């Protein structure tokens, strides 16, 4: 379909200052245009709600770690067989399995079925980027990209130790360019390398990682600087040290202060906003984190909400997964990867009756509800860590419907909730426009995607149309129509078409004198030839960087 006019719907397009006004959206050749000839086909959306397609800024859907997780969970997949959808676009539909880590085709279909059209995998080992592209090729409909892990890379640490900061920046650019990545990811800066050295705790931002000049603080500074100097559309994407540990709020706030004045994205902040003391007590510190973010416009974040039910924890943060394995007794994968990064996987369940899970649930909601700027605190569950992306509609209901939220709050374990803001009562209910901000406009702005997350002229025609329902979970779980690049992929609530999505990546420039030194390093230490490292054959155009 090359042209379509959507008429009569209430448009929620906060990026363009539109808050529920009824108006036409015109689509031609996959993009939104100002007008169409009178005889263009029409889709009547009277009484419905129109938003841009959803954008997931942080999920784990396509990586060696994700497929290791898939392989670990036959019992879960056996419970969730998913038949192929009935497509009518001539493409061959694929069956799959669901659960917390669905197969790739099912992942694409399900995201589209929720009205999400763009998803980023948040943690890819650069050496394994080739597999991420292959998995994204098999994840239909959604546009996809990924963040390349750099915070525990031995070559990078070496440059920091030697004071070779220009080379560190060039290396970051080379990694993104070679892997087809979109942004720089830091996971537990220095802490994964320390885990490989059997050092299990990072106590401060100034703990040495081998050399005394390599510390979590320096790693954060160098990579935040590199992302900003390279003019990357998305700033450095940070998973702080001490994820999931009581009292970690001190480390989180220290990390934010270390980068004060510089653009930085702090991810799944729920997992990093705990008061109390390691091994002794827990409390919510969401208010402190929300207040810091509220008053520092250079900081963005996503929440990483915990949702009750089954999850799979799956992260580059190997050390934390060992702790989870020993505390839960559940099966555990660790993979130490090529001096670059790590990986840990443990299946997990968040239960209402569990004190810590209940606290985590509350902390996430507090981050949403105490955040004064929804553009800078967006929705995620760190899928599948805090819960599946399939739980987003229920999360939206928790944010929009105070009565539902308060009722739910009564059913969770109260042990650690004393004094928490949510327990004291928060009246705030998100509006439809605020939901549009935290699920599309905000992530698009944080990611620097000019043509996504809004419905203005020139935007990609990624559009989701919902039937109104007093039950917001129902409304957001079954969009009436979804368009991807102008193609109607969901019609009357049914998935009908599954076009291939595009790849979203950057190609920053770098000083190629790097390659001489890097070549020697590869020759001495790498198990892969330098010539075989780069991914080739990406068809789509890169997103421009300011430094290019």
């Amino acid at each position: 379909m090359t042209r379509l006019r959507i008429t009569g719907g209430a448009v929620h397009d906060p990026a363009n200052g539109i808050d529920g006004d009824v108006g036409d959206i015109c689509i031609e050749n996959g993009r939104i245009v100002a007008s169409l000839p009178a005889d263009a086909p029409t889709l009547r959306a009277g009484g419905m709600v129109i938003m841009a397609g959803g954008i997931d800024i942080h999920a784990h859907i396509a990586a060696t770690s994700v497929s290791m997780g898939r392989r670990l969970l036959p019992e879960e997949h056996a419970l969730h067989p998913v038949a192929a959808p009935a497509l009518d676009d001539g493409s061959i539909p694929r069956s799959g399995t669901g659960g917390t880590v669905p197969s790739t085709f099912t992942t694409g279909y399900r995201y589209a079925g929720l009205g999400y059209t763009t998803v980023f995998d948040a943690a890819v080992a650069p050496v394994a980027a080739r597999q991420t592209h292959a998995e994204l090729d098999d994840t239909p409909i959604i546009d996809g990209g990924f963040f390349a892990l750099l915070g525990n890379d031995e070559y990078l640490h070496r440059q920091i130790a030697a004071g070779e900061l220009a080379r560190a920046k060039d290396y970051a650019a080379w990694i993104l360019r070679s892997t087809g990545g979109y942004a720089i990811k830091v996971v537990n800066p220095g802490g994964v390398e320390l885990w490989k050295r059997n050092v299990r705790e990072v106590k401060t931002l100034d703990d040495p990682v081998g050399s005394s000049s390599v510390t979590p603080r320096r790693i954060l500074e160098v990579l935040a600087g590199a992302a900003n100097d390279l003019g990357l559309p998305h700033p450095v994407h940070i998973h702080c040290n001490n994820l999931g540990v009581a009292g970690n709020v001190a480390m989180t706030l220290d990390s934010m202060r270390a980068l004060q004045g510089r653009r930085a994205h702090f991810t799944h902040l729920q997992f990093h906003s705990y008061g109390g003391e390691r091994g002794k007590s827990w409390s919510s510190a969401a208010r402190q984190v929300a207040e810091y973010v509220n008053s520092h416009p250079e900081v963005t974040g996503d929440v990483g909400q915990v949702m009750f039910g089954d999850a799979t924890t799956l992260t580059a943060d190997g050390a934390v997964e060992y702790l989870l394995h020993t505390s839960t007794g559940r099966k555990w994968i660790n993979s130490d990867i090529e001096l670059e990064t790590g990986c840990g996987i443990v299946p997990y369940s968040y239960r209402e009756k569990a004190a810590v899970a209940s606290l985590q649930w509350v902390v996430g909601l507090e981050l949403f509800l105490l955040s004064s700027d929804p553009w800078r605190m967006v929705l995620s569950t760190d899928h599948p860590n805090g819960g599946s992306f399939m739980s987003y509609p229920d999360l939206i209901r928790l944010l929009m419907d105070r009565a539902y939220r308060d009722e739910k709050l009564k059913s969770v374990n109260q042990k650690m909730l004393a004094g928490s803001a949510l327990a004291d009562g928060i009246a705030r209910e998100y509006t439809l426009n605020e939901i549009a901000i935290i699920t599309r406009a905000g992530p698009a702005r944080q990611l620097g995607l000019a043509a996504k997350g809004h419905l203005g002229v020139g935007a990609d025609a990624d559009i989701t149309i919902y039937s109104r329902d007093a039950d917001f979970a129902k409304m957001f779980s079954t969009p009436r129509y979804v368009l991807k690049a102008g193609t109607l992929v969901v019609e009357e609530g049914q998935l009908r078409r599954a076009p291939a999505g595009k790849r979203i990546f950057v190609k920053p420039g770098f000083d190629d004198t790097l390659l001489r030194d890097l070549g020697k390093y590869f020759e001495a230490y790498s198990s892969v030839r330098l010539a075989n490292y780069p991914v080739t054959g990406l068809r789509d155009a890169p997103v421009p960087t300011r430094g290019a």
Partner: protein
Amino acid sequence: MSEATRIEENVTCLGCGCACDDIAVVIAGARIREARNACTLGVRWFGDGSLPGAISGGRSAAIEDVLREIASLLRSARAPLVYLAPDLTCEAQGAAIAIADQLRAFVDGVTSSTSADGILAAQRRGRASATLGEIRNRADVVVFWAVDPAASYPRFQSRYAPNPVGVYLPQGRRDRTVIAVDVGAQRGPADADVRIQMTAEEEQLFLASLRASLAGRALGNQSIAARVTELATRLNKARYSVVVTDAESPPSVPSGRADSLIALTQSLNATTRCSLCSLRAGGNRNGADTVLTWHTGFPMAVDFSRGAPRYTPGNAAGARLAHGDCDAALIVGNTNAIPTVVREALGATRIVVIGPRASESTLSAQIRIDTGVAGIHESGMSLRLDDIPLPVRAVLPTPRDTASLLDALGSAIAAQGASA
């Protein structure tokens, strides 16, 4: 007249799962003359690169007609099998799996016959692992458990461990302790620093005692106590140990080795760091498991007959064929590498082979289409035994590209209507 010679550098070898990617392939007159840096297995893997390019058994020689004929043969089957033999790119493996899904077939590959134990154990327990580059740079204690890589993984020791210099092992081999664990006739490397021997019958008790010892329990005066204590002590004192096991060579006496080695290496991480390294044979086997996993959630033995993937590792290709449960088979890849148990059970099944040297296959196939070998005639992706993806590149032309041909077969099947 001298033939023009060209050299393709940095070629990935799929002769075993190590996937050495530093091979220089010398080509003259459309033949491989030399595979520099390759081990004996690698030299055999590359061969001279010559391949037949026939299509045989179809009623017509035109490829479109043959694909239609294969499509109707497979569609008319009650319970088709799609079998992933080795020597395929991940792209070809994916295309074959898509066909299995389309046909509601049963899809399996060599893994269920050769390496299922380790995979099932890892599904029960998880695993503590490390990639080969990590081992090369970090492992100060290397235990070869009932395997000498020299035979089936010849460059493992020189490329990964123990020989290379690593970031944290500046003196290479001298900074490492190599421990050979000999289990009956399955012996570790001859030049190990420490050798611990047991009979095949002792292995189960040894593994249990080793874990008990590491957990701090007394061993009493068992005959194996001294050997267990020595190994436990060395593993405990290691900075970063790795236990290398051959996932393709099960113990001669059932010993629970796969489970026990996972549990052992995981539990060592309570006090030090330890990883398990499972060796896999060649032809991109790990690729088949991994691609099947991302398509279906399961690494082998996937039954699509109910319209969605079901996992039946207890009723894999060999057993199904032996019971007569498959009435047609699409075999993709190198049929010479199919395990005997499957090959013999294929018997009376109607067979289509698409793969390198299909026309020369000893299977009694009805239709055969010659294609190329991953990494020699066909480009794409492969997975090293440690899940690191590597590019494979065609250094010679293929008779026809397997992945593209399978995509075309998928379209031919779709054109004949949805599967019942």
